[in-house]
């Protein structure tokens, strides 16, 4: 039974192998490696422990995510309200037009960030190790 199955798969592999040119193996292998690399870099997010709030180009404050807190930051346009609760953080209110920062909703993984360009307020989540500096890169 196992012998039959093995010989079947071996013959079908040989059957498909005839369509591969040397370069095709190279392309397939590098494509698979590329996908694995993408999984590794984009999916290795750990839970964040702290949030760093920036105003303009300066660090405004750094808070632990374990304590519930409401932060009011006076930006270029007005007051941004940031909410920290249960290991998560979000923009609650922002005076900006697009409201992208508010729509990003709760963030909890290290390396995530919400940026309000109009009001020049941004927050970045920090973990034990910094995975990827998306703000300064």
């Amino acid at each position: 039974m196992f012998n039959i199955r093995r010989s079947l798969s071996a013959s079908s592999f040989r059957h498909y192998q005839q369509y591969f040119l040397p370069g095709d193996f190279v392309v397939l292998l590098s494509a698979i490696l590329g996908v694995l690399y993408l999984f590794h870099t984009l999916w290795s997010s750990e839970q964040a422990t702290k949030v760093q709030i920036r105003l303009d180009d300066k660090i405004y404050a750094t808070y632990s995510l374990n304590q519930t807190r409401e932060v009011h930051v006076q930006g270029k346009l007005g007051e941004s309200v940031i909410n920290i609760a249960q290991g998560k953080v979000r923009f609650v209110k922002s005076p900006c037009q697009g409201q992208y920062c508010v729509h990003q909703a709760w963030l909890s993984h290290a390396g995530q960030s919400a940026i309000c360009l109009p009001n020049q307020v941004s927050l970045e989540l920090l973990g034990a190790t910094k995975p990827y500096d998306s703000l300064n890169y």
Partner: protein
Amino acid sequence: MDIKQIQTTVDDHRIAKLAAFAIALHMLEAVIPSPLPGVKPGLANIVTLYVLYQYGFATAAWVSILRVFASSLLLGQFLAPSFVLSLSGACFSLLALWLLQHLSKDWFGPISLSILAAIAHIGGQLLIVRLWLIPHAGVAYLVPVFAAAAVLFGLINGLITSKLLSKYSG
């Protein structure tokens, strides 16, 4: 009364016939449910690739673009976001194929072209998604899934194209 008729060439008829094949495959795919919107086998690309090998790049480009327009009209998605995604995917994969056709035929076969065109296809679509539909860094989270699907389906479509080519071009 003088009746003006558009003169069609043999090439036009061939393009129409091949585009019809591609449209049929596109329609077939539209009714297959997908676990994640956007992850599709891309069967119509088999036609594009086959045409590229048999009739050259110009015919392949016609077939691909015609397929995008006609399918979106049939599905009622013309000028909707999904049409823009479809078009950008087709344009990017055509651009990739245009570059890749200059590769050595002894080293790189349809499988290489299929995989790389599939990656270009999803790359073009994700670019539109990121820039226009979902302007959020969170899109990056989905990139590995789409890339994996592109490589898998690119490989399968490449194998199918190879088989078709070896059967019909001798």
